[in-house]
């Protein structure tokens, strides 16, 4: 049986401002979903809420993996159940070596009951594995010795996210604008990397403004978010249509959500 990520009537507030107003979505392992929508619609909020960011308060609704409610779980517990977020803005952590960090992460994800201070995955085995994944992603092995995201270019940071995904084998991966701010070569590397990794064992939610990532990873489902709700769901053709024609017709079809979205954009601009 493939695993199921089920989001039911999800309401999320940030600093007491409601952002998500009842999101429903079901993602199965092996499926690719695209999430699209204009600025301020709540796409990144959904990504952070799924990953368990403490500042994104879930005020109603639930998130379940295979029927287990994870709404109250901390980020690390969700990760150990198979959740992964590729960050739009990966965080710089000076003084922490990439290899050391990923080795800790891999040890926890593969041994979810591991307590801090307990044994890490064997060094030799780990080194061999990370070297292979880095080669596949066209990364210099030297990166393993650098400090996490410290002084990395935009493309290097995004590749580092994909490397982590490759090492952690999540059941559900959310990619938050992994293709933004990259030149076309970098977009290609990331797109191909994702295409290699996704398969029957991974459910993927791709948040994107661009078409390139979806060309390499055609979605079975496209969701359109507006004003903190999913207003339409279709197939790959919907994604293509939105890229070509923008959100004007979507706004027309959903005036209430469009009004909420306009308000959110205004607030964000202030």
């Amino acid at each position: 049986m493939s695993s199921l990520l089920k989001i039911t009537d999800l309401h999320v507030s940030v600093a007491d401002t409601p952002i998500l107003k009842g999101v429903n979505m079901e993602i199965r392992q092996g499926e690719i979903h695209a999430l699209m929508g204009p600025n301020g619609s709540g796409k990144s909020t959904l990504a952070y809420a799924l990953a368990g960011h403490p500042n994104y308060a879930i005020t109603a609704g639930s998130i379940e993996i295979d029927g287990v409610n994870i709404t109250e779980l901390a980020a690390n517990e969700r990760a150990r159940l198979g959740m992964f977020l590729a960050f739009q803005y990966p965080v710089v952590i000076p003084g922490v070596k990439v290899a050391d960090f990923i080795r800790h992460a891999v040890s926890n994800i593969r041994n979810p009951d591991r307590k801090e201070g307990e044994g890490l995955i064997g060094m030799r085995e780990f080194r061999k594995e990370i070297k292979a994944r880095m080669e596949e992603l066209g990364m210099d092995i030297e990166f393993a010795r650098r400090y996490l995201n410290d002084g990395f270019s935009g493309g290097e940071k995004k590749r580092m996210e994909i490397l982590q995904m490759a090492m952690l084998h999540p059941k559900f991966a959310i990619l938050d604008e992994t293709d933004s701010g990259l030149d076309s070569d970098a977009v290609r590397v990331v797109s191909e990397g994702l295409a290699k990794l996704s398969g029957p064992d991974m459910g993927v939610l791709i948040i994107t403004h661009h078409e390139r990532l979806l060309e390499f990873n055609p979605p079975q489902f496209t969701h359109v978010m507006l004003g903190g709700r999913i207003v339409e769901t279709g197939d790959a053709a919907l994604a293509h249509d939105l890229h070509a024609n923008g959100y004007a017709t979507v706004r027309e079809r959903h005036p209430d959500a469009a009004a909420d979205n306009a308000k959110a954009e205004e607030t964000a601009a202030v």
Partner: protein
Amino acid sequence: MSTDAPETDEVGLGDYQFGFHDSTDDYEFKSRKGLDREIVGQISEMKKEPAWMRDFRLKSLETFESRPMPSWGGDMSELDFNDIYYYMKATKGQERSWDDVPEDIRKTYDRLGIPEAEKKFLSGVKAQYDSEVVYGSLKEDLAKEGVLFTDTDSALREHPEIFREYFSTIIPPEDNKFAALNSAVWSGGSFIYVPPGVHIEFPLQAYFRINSENMGQFERTLIIVDEGASAHYVEGCTAPTYSSDSLHSAVVEIVVKRGGRFRYTTIQNWSNNVYNLVTKRAMAYGDALMEWVDGNLGSRLTMKYPAIYLMEPGARGETLSIAFAGEHQHQDAGAKMVHCAPNTSSRIISKSISKDGGRSSYRGLVKVEDGAHHCKSNVVCDALILDSDSKSDTYPYIEVEEQDVAIEHEASVSKIAEEQLFYLMSRGLSEAEASAMIVTGFIEPLVKELPMEYAVEMNRLIELQMEGSVG
């Protein structure tokens, strides 16, 4: 832990692993609590000191009494000078073999890992227990080369000329209230003399241990590194956890002569009931290099700003400061660099960490005196705040009386490490593991400057500080 340590749990400081203590029943001598001329006279008499030192102490007491408490820095309103024992002598004298040190005291140092470290990588050791040094050693070859490494009381008796030439010349009692206090009641501490051209490869280590409740420890350290010589001195400090306060107020005076190099490393890990109010100052002469590596992890309040006076052209000074303020802790730490001569250079790197309501402050002074042209100074302070209950402040002072100088100051905006924590936790790391990783990474540039054994120790202590106390 020791059967003697129920207080640890009572005051809720269970994470501190050095909070045990020994019985004080068999002590050689205990002064009564409080401070007056009689106590000062008694200390001097116990030590059979020359009259000049007795007079120096009594005059310093007057200076101490006449000075007001500092109005800046940390909160000392609960520090009661009358509730402190100013002199506690645990053993008859200093031993040269650990086998001769009374068993419970020896066991304490075993638990602190000192004899083991001594065997592995040290050139010499001094172990001070309350007021007096109870054990001392120095490698034979260094003694043959003329290196002196004794407790400061012995130096007064055995090397009176060199002692008197330097003692109190770098930090006079009038310097500040706590320097005056130390001058009145000082006991123990290290005296080091490194003859010209002698290089001491492995560190000399001193370990300061407070054992008694309401103890005041006032060691006095005097170090002279002669021309072209080099050495590295390391001090560690711990104390039992008591529900009442103890006071540690040291004075450290250092002279590094022309072409000499000296590094003074501190790993201060007092229990959270110790006021740590210390004056440290070095004078570096022509082309000499003086370095302070100052790690402050423990204590209730620390106020300490190691200073370097750059006395002649070519002198260089460097201070690396690490402060970690946890629950109920205030680390008011920093550095002073005084450029008294042209073509001198200094660097201050400060890293502070605050968590669980702790407060860390960087307080620093860079001063360039008139005529000290072509000086360079670079100051970098970074602060890491792990949660919104904790605090960090920066007080950088710059006084320049000369035009032709290059002074740089960078302070990174203190920020709460929430996003870093979330990022690591989203990859499966527990909150404690993620915090420890962020903190270890944050201080990595400093820790890698330490000799390997101390780097390992510093990382271990930081991990202990982080363990079990988050979320």
